[in-house]
């Protein structure tokens, strides 16, 4: 898809960090890390299955965006945490139970944010040493180094995964992933660690700010310029790649019958000419910019953007172009629909469109595309808390995997063992990739299918290949763990149970753990099939209480600990295989 023959090398681009030849070969870097992502066995959905579930598609609830005024109990707290964070613990539930719903949403949306410290060389190992950056030091300002970039890119990916693992009571990481899906770059196509870090930082820093600002930043982001060929776009040979995607995939979408035209794509491509990057910064080259006027179609009200020249021409025309895109009423609707599918429910029927999407879009426009007012209204609405919306989302692989780590308090070694921390988070990425969501590498510029491919949407995460992989992942975390060289990350079932409200009572343990792990309540008859696992099929619940008490009184006693651990592992093995665990 890259048309190298059309390159018009700029004459003045500072190439202090990266020579041009290296930059052009980013996507073809021969120094790949040679690792295998588990082959995915995907059985296509049968026509029968597709018909069955398309027919069945349940109408979403008809509640509106009116402020939610119902009860604020554990169920509502857990619903809010499930949807807005990557997993939560009992402490989080208790914390928000002590607040009002409004306070809880406010805190999650407005959590203080300081950009986290960036990744460092945590990947040096017996078989690879970064020739330029010492272990433990940042590579973010280091020159491009072909042999090291695959490791640096994986280090960024692993670092990003750890931001998710470490995300506190905040929606920011989830929104970062949302924007990554909406405005993707594929790491494997842009193998340059510090550039990928900057792309990720742009998403995170702007995640809860202004969508228009984000679009401007991402348009000029080095990784995006590279990924969608913006850096090759010149007045003599316009490259239409980004000009098309910004309209079709990023801002306007293609939900409408009437549509922007091919001429609109061509005009946008001319408007976007002249931007260049060295992977660290973005530069505008006046001599590469098309200074002519850009005429757009009736879809955009026949708007004409005046051609400019001079050092600010590109930026000014981009601002005009974004103004034009964001003046179209579809822009707000398009993103609100995506937010709705990501956070609430996959199905949008005409009633939802009218009751939820259109009012949200209006708020979005009225606030000049600030993101927070939209989220604030949505998460405080009776529609969001409607019981019919609860548990109705199929967890993405990231939701499932990161959530598993966070809910069970699985620990990584941290700064004390940088390499193991990298290695374990790297493997976590591989595990999610096997379930079809490789963070940093969506399948293409449209993002993951589960977020756009109608009518199946989030059901696309689950097929006969990926569902067993989810089970294998939970089994591994219960029984074996993920290993680094000298440490491992594994579920500690005793520590987990100890964090529950009343773990010595087998019924309380089951009730509370299922409430936290399952997307929807299960009947008592199901709980009755789980109790025998903890009780070794004994009729008296006091055996569990007795065993728990013995261990509490003598925590170092392996006889007591082992008896509980074996049963908790068998319990979690079963519970995490149950289908309810896949919903949130």
């Amino acid at each position: 898809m890259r048309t190298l023959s059309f390159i018009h090398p700029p004459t003045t681009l500072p190439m202090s960090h990266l020579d041009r030849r290296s930059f052009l070969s980013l996507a073809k870097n021969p120094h790949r890390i040679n690792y295998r992502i588990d082959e995915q066995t995907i059985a296509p959905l049968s026509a029968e299955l597709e018909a069955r579930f398309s027919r069945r598609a349940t109408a979403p609830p008809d509640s509106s965006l009116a402020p939610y005024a119902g009860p604020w109990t554990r169920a509502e707290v857990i619903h809010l945490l499930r949807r807005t964070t990557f997993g939560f613990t009992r402490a989080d539930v208790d914390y928000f139970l002590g607040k009002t719903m409004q306070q809880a949403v406010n805190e999650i949306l407005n959590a203080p944010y300081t950009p986290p410290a960036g990744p460092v060389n945590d990947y040096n190992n017996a078989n690879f040493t970064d020739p330029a950056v010492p272990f433990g030091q940042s590579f973010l300002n280091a020159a491009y180094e072909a042999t090291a970039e695959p490791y640096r890119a994986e280090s960024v990916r692993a670092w990003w995964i750890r931001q998710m693992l470490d995300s506190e009571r905040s929606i920011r990481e989830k929104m970062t992933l949302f924007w990554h899906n909406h405005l993707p770059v594929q790491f494997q196509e842009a193998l340059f660690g510090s550039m990928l870090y900057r792309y990720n930082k742009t998403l995170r820093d702007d995640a809860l700010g202004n969508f228009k600002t984000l679009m401007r930043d991402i348009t000029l982001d080095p990784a995006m310029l590279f990924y969608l060929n913006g850096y090759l776009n010149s007045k003599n040979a316009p490259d239409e790649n980004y000009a098309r995607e910004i309209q079709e995939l990023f801002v306007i979408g293609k939900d409408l019958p009437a549509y922007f035209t091919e001429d609109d794509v061509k005009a946008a491509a001319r408007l976007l000419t002249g931007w260049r990057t060295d992977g660290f910064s973005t530069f505008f080259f006046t001599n590469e910019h098309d200074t002519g006027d850009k005429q757009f179609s009736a879809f955009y009200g026949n708007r004409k953007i005046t051609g400019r020249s001079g050092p600010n021409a590109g930026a000014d025309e981009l601002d005009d172009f974004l103004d034009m895109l964001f003046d179209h009423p579809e822009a707000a609707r398009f993103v609100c629909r995506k937010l709705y599918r990501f956070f609430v429910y996959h199905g949008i029927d005409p009633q939802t469109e009218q009751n939820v999407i259109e009012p949200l879009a209006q708020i979005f426009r009225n606030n000049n595309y600030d993101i927070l007012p939209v989220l604030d209204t949505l998460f405080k609405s009776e529609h969001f808390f409607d019981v019919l919306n609860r548990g109705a989302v199929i967890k993405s692989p990231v939701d499932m995997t990161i959530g598993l780590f966070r809910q069970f308090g699985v620990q990584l070694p941290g700064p004390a063992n940088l390499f193991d921390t990298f290695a374990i988070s790297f493997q976590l990425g591989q595990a999610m990739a096997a379930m079809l969501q490789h963070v940093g590498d969506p399948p293409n510029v449209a993002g993951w299918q589960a977020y756009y491919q109608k009518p199946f949407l989030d059901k696309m995460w689950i097929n006969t290949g990926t569902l067993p992989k989810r089970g294998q992942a939970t089994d591994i975390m219960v029984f074996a763990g993920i290993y680094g060289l000298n440490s491992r990350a594994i579920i500690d079932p005793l520590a987990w149970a100890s964090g529950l409200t009343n773990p010595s009572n087998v019924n309380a343990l089951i009730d509370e753990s299922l409430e936290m792990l399952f997307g929807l309540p299960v009947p008592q008859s199901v709980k009755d099939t789980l109790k025998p696992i903890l009780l070794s099929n004994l009729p008296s619940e006091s055996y569990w209480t007795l065993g728990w008490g013995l261990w509490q009184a003598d925590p170092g006693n392996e006889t007591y600990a082992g008896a509980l651990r074996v049963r908790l592992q068998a319990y979690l093995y079963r519970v995490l295989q149950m289908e309810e665990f896949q919903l949130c």
Partner: protein
Amino acid sequence: MKRRNFLKNMTAGVAIPSLLNGFGVRAHAANPFSRLLNGLSSDTDHVLVVIQLDGGNDGLATVSPLDQYNRLANGRPNIVLPENSLLSLSGTPTLAMHPALDGLRDLYNDGNVRIVQNVGYPNPSLSHFRATDIWMSGSNADEFFPSGWAGRYLAYEYPNFPIDYPNPDMPHPLAVEIGYSMSLSLMGPQTGMGFVIPSTDDYYQLLNSTQTPAPNTPAGEQLAYVRLIAQQSRTYAQAILDASNTITTQQTYPDTPLAAKLKIISRLIAGGLKTRLYLVSIGGFDTHAQQVETSDRTTGTHANLLGELGDAIKAFCDDLQFLGTADRVTGMTFSEFGRRIASNSSDGTDHGESAPMFLFGKPVAGGVTGSNPQLPQVPTANDNLDMEFDFRSVYASVLRDWFCVPQNDVPGILLHEFPYLNGMFESNLACTPSDVHDQNQSAGKSLLNCRPNPFRSGLTFDYESAGGMTLVQILDTSGRLVATPVSTWQARGQYQEYWDAGDLPPGTYFCRLVTGGQQQTKTVVKVE
């Protein structure tokens, strides 16, 4: 031994009822000839069905020593069964069964039950949890094994599991447990070795392509979808389905939970699964109170449980006979402990120590192993039954004589040496040919080879790294990491590494390769 042959099947007319009844091609796999062509089980594939009696079964009321009857009556005057109600056993004048065990008594009198007396282990635990774990893992009272005895046997037989399983060499589950979750018994050195069918309902839903109804809500609709995919993708689900569908007629079973489970197992065995181990359990044996109805001591909780047990086993054995699989199926019961000799004042018995085990089925040599327990003149609450046989001697004998594991290899599975109990099976038992064992050894994909095995000074590992983080670890039998001969980040490929074991004590160890999200564990033995 009464080994089945084709001619006998034909004359008996029961082995291939589906063909005779014209059920059509779908049933052809029940035919022993096509069975061989289809990679299904063969006549020499031995199956073990383990029935766990949860709660601690009262051995003295299950099989009562008549020569000790008066002493038993002294110790438990409020619950002892009337002597004349006990069921006598042919050829065994000093032992009698509980009156509810008439089904099992019939099997015994036909020579298809062996009673192993006074089974236990040194320093027994009277805790349900701990004792169950000891019986399942096969550890000593002061050891902790995170793996189970049956899981280790399966890991020995199928060393590459679970990489590239199922496969043409072993298309079926290694073990099937009908129960709430996977037992410790079936835990291998790294992973569960079994396929769990959570309930009999779950099995019939699979068979009939139905699911537990989901609520009629958006969440319920999503749940129904995940459940459907779960059913379709459950590894081995199709094998279970295919095996089940070849069997259309079975003998009548009692309407009890245990019988319902055994009925499924018989169907799967006859349907051609090569699965060697089946596990089921029956709960409720923790009879601290009201073990008997005081108005009629031959009735009550314990009588109901034993009735369910004996009748289910009898129906199961009859069905095996009907379906032509009786010659290759053996059953075994166990419970985490027996109960006290003396009763308590709640008309029950408290936790005890040794107790009898049953082995049943046509391949079993009928009779009794061991002697009657010896009771004190007036048993008190402090008196327990001495152990005569270690339960792992029973496992060892089953492994050697039923699963045909070479005697030299048994200690590597049980992690200690135990004396064998001879004469528990028919003497002319046909063993699975060794080429089947060889085939099992190579089934799936081997990512790690550890040689030599057994080893004295060191091991050479040939392994395949998936690329990235790669480890070869040595773990001891308690799951503790004792060495990490390979720990590196490397490119995908084949590697070889030598490791000097130094002064590692002799014993069984597990070598585990961790690479690319997969793990494979091989068992090795260090010798002096």
